[in-house]
């Protein structure tokens, strides 16, 4: 069924795949902010960045191929988010429900700077028998009044480990399982 002629055909198929399907390089969260801020500027004059989260798997250095950025506009009382991959916006989503969310201050440490502490502050021990850093979320007013990174380690079964770090200093504020 699969003769020797099929292999070059499959290889050719690989090269014919759309450009967007290529594997993207892992990058830190801040790398997409400038691009999405231009998109948010087109959406609403008063748009403010309120949430950052990895859209694809994280590596050990806190980098991911794709990051998601959520904005809130007080004037529209609406939320819209963009997903950035390979320095391109690959998704734009209007959210059906919204709440007034506070803006992230500009002085936050990047995901690459924050993640080593999360691993050292319980992540490594939690994942010793399997598990991974599943989510990195930067938000203000949800886990803490000030902007904070929340690292969520997951083992598939059982409770996850949450490590909350101050977004400016990187200091661990809290750890819990849930």
């Amino acid at each position: 069924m699969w003769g020797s002629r099929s292999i070059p055909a499959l290889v050719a198929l690989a090269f014919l795949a759309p450009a967007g399907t290529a594997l993207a390089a892992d990058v830190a969260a801040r790398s997409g902010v400038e691009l999405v801020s231009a998109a948010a500027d087109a959406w609403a004059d008063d748009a403010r960045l309120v949430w950052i989260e990895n859209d694809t798997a994280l590596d050990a250095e806190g980098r991911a191929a794709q990051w998601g950025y959520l904005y809130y506009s007080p004037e529209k009382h609406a939320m819209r988010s963009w997903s950035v991959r390979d320095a391109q916006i690959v998704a734009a989503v209007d959210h059906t429900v919204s709440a007034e969310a506070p803006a992230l201050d500009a002085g936050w440490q990047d995901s690459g700077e924050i993640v080593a502490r999360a691993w050292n502050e319980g992540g490594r021990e939690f994942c010793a028998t399997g598990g991974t850093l599943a989510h990195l979320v930067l938000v203000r007013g949800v886990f803490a009044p000030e902007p904070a990174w929340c690292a969520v380690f997951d083992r598939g079964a059982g409770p996850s480990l949450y490590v909350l770090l101050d977004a400016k200093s990187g200091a661990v504020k809290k750890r819990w399982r849930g």
Partner: protein
Amino acid sequence: MRTIWSLFGALALWAAEPAAAAEAHLPFFNANRDWVLRRFEELQRPSNADLAPARAWSFDPFADESALARLRAAQAGLDSATTVGDLGGFRAALDRVLLDAAAAGARLDSLDRCFARHLRTALEVTLAAKPAVDVERVEAWLDGMLVQQRTLSDTERAALAAGGVFEVVRRVVEPRTQTLEVRAWARGATEPSRTLLTVSPPPDQLSVVHLDLDSAQAPARTERTALGGGN
């Protein structure tokens, strides 16, 4: 054989990856959305809004409005010059005018840089048409959403017929790949000319798409340029 199937499987996974990634947009937020939004709603609101004052730019090449007077004075100085000393006065007046011009040029350069730095991501679509194609209505659509519709005035149609260019739409847009469709109805035509193209406006630049319409039914020819950024 197993190698071939593995390769095929890997290719299938590879091709499917972006779709899966799009579905996984903001996974933690979406999984906990109601709780997160409630937490936002429970926050105390600051009483005073942080409203940054609007920044105004002004440019007047000769702010003291004396440029014309100086030029006239210099001209008069030359016309009435009868001595070498008079010519010296003329030269001094001319030097002052040149200094003002150099300062105005520097200010204009500075404004130009500011303009480029503060450009928002924008798209402008312009249209030219052959005189035989009497365009009377246009529509612009972005990603299937109507963003502009215009009925041309008699003056605009006359200008277009005389070789002029009509601005179909100019607006701030998101710097991502989008589908632009421009529909142009010629006088008496029931169906418009439809020009469909993919645009990817670069951030903080003005992307210009110029359409040249040769026929009332066929798509227009397109030319693209961009202003700002590294241009």
